[in-house]
């Protein structure tokens, strides 16, 4: 999975997506903000949803508790 490694750690792309979704960005706005092609935003969001880090909300995605915890963990490490 490009967004999450085998140990469950999120990578840079996942962090960018979670950042954008945390701000309530639409998929198109997330593509603009992250510089990722829209298809990678969609596939990345799907991976994050499968990992339980985001859930569909109003035609975009919202962070779950697990997603917020993952972000907090990354922020604590940096």
């Amino acid at each position: 999975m490009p967004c999450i490694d085998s140990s469950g750690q999120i990578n840079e792309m996942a962090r960018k997506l979670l950042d954008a979704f945390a701000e309530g960005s639409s998929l198109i706005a997330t593509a603009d903000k992250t510089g990722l092609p829209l298809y990678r935003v969609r596939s990345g969001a799907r991976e994050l949803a499968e990992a339980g880090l985001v859930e569909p909300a109003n035609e975009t995605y919202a962070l779950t508790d697990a997603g917020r915890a993952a972000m907090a963990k990354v922020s604590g490490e940096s």
Partner: protein
Amino acid sequence: METTTQEKAAPSIPRLGQPAPAFEAQTTHGTLRLEDFKGSWLILFSHPADFTPVCTTEFVAFAEIAPELKKRGVELCGLSIDSTYSHIAWVRNIEEKFGVKIPFPVIADLNKEVATLYGMIMPGESKTETSRCVFVIDPNGTLRAMIYYPLTTGRNMQEILRLIDALQTTDKNGVATPANWKPGEKVIIPPPATAEAAEERMKAGFETKDWYFSKKSL
């Protein structure tokens, strides 16, 4: 509803003007579905095999036109009957040996699911490799153009760019494009469908050879 690769069907060629066959596939950019490309134009293309010379020239050439395609809202996605690991090794080799980074995903179609759906395998040429196919899919997921080249012949990237320009010009302006058309040249006005409209066309002020043949500048 989840969209995954359509049920296995007998090999067939997709039809222009119809929805492009849905798929879900492993790629060098992770798992991708056709629907992930919705809203963008997509050039889905196949090549016979990784680490082969004509295919390498084509990958370099596709990478070279990728910025021009991006300006036109077009994404690229390659495909062959090779593994993801082979694709990764090959694109890394292309970068190392040719200095060209491959910016687009490449489908690892080891089970030939996508190749079968899109009629990419020509048994008269090879039963184990995909021919050099190009499918142009519009932002609504409709198949708009197909190009098939044999194993021996590398594709012409300028023609692919020209095809995209022609399709987008048609969509934007409701016109057709003549043989060898290039952006900036005159376009064809669709022929009138009634005798009355044909009469009107002769007086409409276009560059008209006869009632069915009119051109104009955009």
